[in-house]
């Protein structure tokens, strides 16, 4: 969705067109949920984070907040809400409930099917096994495609720290997931 369409939809929402909110956010919900799930490792908490982000988005739009690029803004909101919950939940050690997660099967051939499923399983497992600090930067950088400076701002850390966490996360992934041919190296920005 281009910026102009986003702007028009936000104007329509402010005029009371409820359908426009659905049009604006529906394409973003799946990625938001998956990002949140990766950070929180909990389907329940991920749903909660997305719900909070949706309400916050609607509130910001109707109150006239200047949002230049909604997609990017929403990515930052979902990251913030997920991290908020992660920080709050961490002392309770309550956040692993992805046992029932079923990964969709979209492979083209039986062989492809087996290989893809195995690869996806191992990669998701490996990322979920990382500690929160490293998991968050990996997901925000590679899946949400936020910039280093945006991640630094979100996490309230220096850009160098973000790079360092990315480096160490990739090092771990390359050890426990060599099949992906991931190589640990400094992230170029």
């Amino acid at each position: 969705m281009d910026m102009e369409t986003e702007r028009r939809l936000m104007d329509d929402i402010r005029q009371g067109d409820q359908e426009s909110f659905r049009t604006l956010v529906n394409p973003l919900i799946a990625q938001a949920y998956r990002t949140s799930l990766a950070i929180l490792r909990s389907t329940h908490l991920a749903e909660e984070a997305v719900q909070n982000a949706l309400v916050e988005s609607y509130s910001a739009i109707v109150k006239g907040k200047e949002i230049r690029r909604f997609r990017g803004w929403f990515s930052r909101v979902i990251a913030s809400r997920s991290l908020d919950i992660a920080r709050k939940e961490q002392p309770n050690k309550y956040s692993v409930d992805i046992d029932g997660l079923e990964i969709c099967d979209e492979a083209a051939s039986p062989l492809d099917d087996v290989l893809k499923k195995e690869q996806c399983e191992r990669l998701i497992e490996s990322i979920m096994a990382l500690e929160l600090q490293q998991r968050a930067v990996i997901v925000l950088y590679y899946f949400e495609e936020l910039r280093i400076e945006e991640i630094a701002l979100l996490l309230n850390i220096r850009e160098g720290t973000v790079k360092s966490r990315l480096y160490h996360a990739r090092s771990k992934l390359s050890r426990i997931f060599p099949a992906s041919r991931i190589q640990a190296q400094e992230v170029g920005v």
Partner: protein
Amino acid sequence: MRSEYEMKRSLQESFERIPVPESLYRFADEVPGRFAAGDFTSAAEPAPASRRSARFKLFKSVAAAAILVSAFSAGVTMSPAFASLVKEVPGFEIAVDWLTHVRQQDGVQTAVDHGYTPIEPATVRFDGTSITIDDIYLTDDELLFKAFIRSTDYDVTDGRSPVHLSIVPSNLRGGGSTTASYIAETTDGSSQPVRQDTYKYQLEENAVHNFMASGQTELVLQVSKVTSDHELKRSTYEDKGSVVLTVDRQKLLHNIVMEPHQSFRSRYPIRIGKS
């Protein structure tokens, strides 16, 4: 940078296979209407000085239910099997294993295992719909409960159905929504689908205190049938009645917050593929 590209591609391909709950799309549909109705007022107001906590006022963690049982740490713990047996859902014959799994997901099973069920369930029926409210927990600032719904009026299994039920406390002010939904089948031989919605309401400050101080002993949940018309871009709410829950204040624990007495279980590996 090849490894950079591979990392990004692999991660995106893997994550895009994770299914997304339909309930989130329905929630997005409801946000404008519920915002206009004032459901989210306290949560959506920005509060720069305590921004994080203000946002948490909308849907706090399900951990609250688990924390509730902490006061029983020195008490007798029922065996999970017995607790499940005595804590079936009235009016619904549902597989105990499934129910236990759902309760483990949201922390309620720990409370059940410790025999902590402070508010008794209640069932209402209207038209072709039967609703049981169970697993009800009231803290100083939160109300959590589960709704088990069976209906011949609408398809409870269809997450995209234009019709669904909304259950809102009418004598405790607060904002909230469903936080999870599951579909099961009855085990009475008819294999009828049963929808289970978990609700969580963040209550206004002093709402519970005032409720108790006023001497009320009944918590009333209003049930509405919500029909969304996507062409007309509006939803209509039809009042279908209320569920009255008897509150015995002697049974309610007050917020004694301790670490939940449940082990931290890693559940890797994730199951991949169709079941």
